[in-house]
């Protein structure tokens, strides 16, 4: 069920070519193809934008408008306004989702009774719940926080549930057989094996929290980044609209990328390199 988010990281099975030179050559080829792909997208965007400047702002124009929006002081307040919901909502989703997931993972009956609600939340388009939340809570920060929590919580909880379910029994038993103390068992077996999926859940949850933050501002509350988008769209200010959109994509990319790096470094410290 938890795989709706897609494969956490499609494994790149590293090749083992014969010599050092071929390794370097292969890495160079990979990077060349990767850069070519990114460049191709940027160039295509630029060309289309120059042909049809009314609806598509070229890549360079988009970047220039993004910089201008920061300079003339429109972007900073919007970013702060929107991200408040994320700053409160994501920790709240983690604080509620982790214990919930752990409990459902250990208590079978509770899981059978309530687990499927989480599964449903994963499958259902959450955006449809936004109008109900707005009627209940008004156009407030609370409403935005609730939407962020609803978007992130199922992922956090479901990955946490899977993590404590699959603690490898044989490994725990082996540690016991070798006379590992309770603390050692936790330190060497249980935490490392549960860590990876729990953190993956937090990372996927973060990506969805950012979506939630944008969704509520786009649908019914024109404020913050969503407010800028709605205004620029109705004013047909293509450059500004593309600039804000790029900013949101970059924010998701940076935050989730940072989470991924953190995940890797902690996993390495715990002695698990295959994250």
């Amino acid at each position, binding site marked *: 069920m938890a*795989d*709706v*988010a*897609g*494969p956490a*990281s*499609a494994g*790149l099975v590293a*090749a083992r070519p014969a010599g050092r030179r071929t390794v370097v050559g292969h890495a160079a*080829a*990979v*990077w*060349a*193809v*990767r850069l070519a*792909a*990114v460049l191709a997208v940027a160039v295509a965007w630029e060309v289309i934008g120059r042909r049809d400047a009314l*609806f598509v702002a070229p890549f360079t124009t988009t970047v220039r408008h993004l910089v201008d929006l920061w300079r003339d002081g429109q972007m900073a307040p919007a970013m702060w306004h929107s991200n408040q919901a994320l700053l409160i909502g994501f920790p709240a989703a983690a604080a509620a989702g982790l214990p919930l997931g752990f409990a459902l993972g250990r208590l079978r009956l509770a899981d*059978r*009774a*309530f687990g*499927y*609600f989480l599964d*449903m939340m*994963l*499958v*259902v*388009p959450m*955006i*449809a*719940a*936004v*109008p*109900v939340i*707005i*009627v*209940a809570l008004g156009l407030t920060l609370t409403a935005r926080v609730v939407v962020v929590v609803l978007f992130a919580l199922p992922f956090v909880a479901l990955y946490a549930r899977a993590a404590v379910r699959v603690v490898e029994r044989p490994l725990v038993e082996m540690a016991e057989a070798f006379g590992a103390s309770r603390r050692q068992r936790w330190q060497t077996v249980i935490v490392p094996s549960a860590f990876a999926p729990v953190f993956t859940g937090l*990372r996927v949850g973060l*990506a969805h929290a*950012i*979506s939630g933050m*944008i*969704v509520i501002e*786009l*649908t*019914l509350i024109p404020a913050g980044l969503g407010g800028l*988008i*709605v205004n620029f*769209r109705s004013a*047909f200010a293509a450059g500004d*609209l*593309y600039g804000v*959109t790029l900013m*949101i*994509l970059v924010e*998701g*990319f940076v935050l*989730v*990328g940072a989470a*991924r790096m953190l995940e890797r470094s902690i996993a390495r410290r715990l002695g698990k390199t295959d994250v």
Partner: protein
Amino acid sequence: MSERRPASALRGVLRLWPQTASGAGLIGLWELDASLRHPTWLPTVESVASSWWQLVTSGAFRVATTSLETLGIGLVAVLAAGALVAGLLARFRLLDEALTPLLNAAMSTPVVALVPVFVMIWGFTDTTRVIAVVTFAFVPLVLQWIVALKSVPEHLTEMSHAFAGGRLALTRTIVLPAVAPLLLNGARIAVVQAIKGLITAEMIIGVVGVGKLIVTASETFDMAQLYAVVLTVVAVSVASYVVLSTLEHRSSRWADA
């Protein structure tokens, strides 16, 4: 899973008693709260039910057919594009190593932010909705299908060659069983994402399909109708998910046999 006895249907219901109890409890709490406190945001169960019936009989749900049409077109497009790209990436290692990390990075960006850009380009048209469906589903689908296509066990294909198995036999006995469950898993993810993309686009556009029903109901504070539409969306998404999961289980059982 395997035992089949005459009273299996009843037995199934009995086995699901925790789920049934919690679901019934939730509806009970909802009804109790709605009829005692009358919160503005929570209509009673029977008003939602009658509003739903009215939507069905008055033909208001007919606008949903355009939504389903868009969903169908978008799904066909994204499955075709996904098959092409996943095929290329699974076939050529260099492309896979170069581009799969980019696709993984794309997973972390909020695609919903792109919908206003699509509206800017294509206006309130069907194209906008189809593009939204495709963008929501494409990356997760491709990532899953690459995994699927790469999962053919090599020692079995070698064995098939060793026993002089033809191409057809190889496909039927080894490739399909290995790949089918994961391909269906990818399709399931694509359908879930496509529905999310469709509803998101329609709610941001606000004047077409199911999204229109939701937006009008919430703008006129018609809570009963809002719940009726939202719960219908929930039911359809869950139903399509369950159908595809069942197919997937079937296929993996077939693959194991």
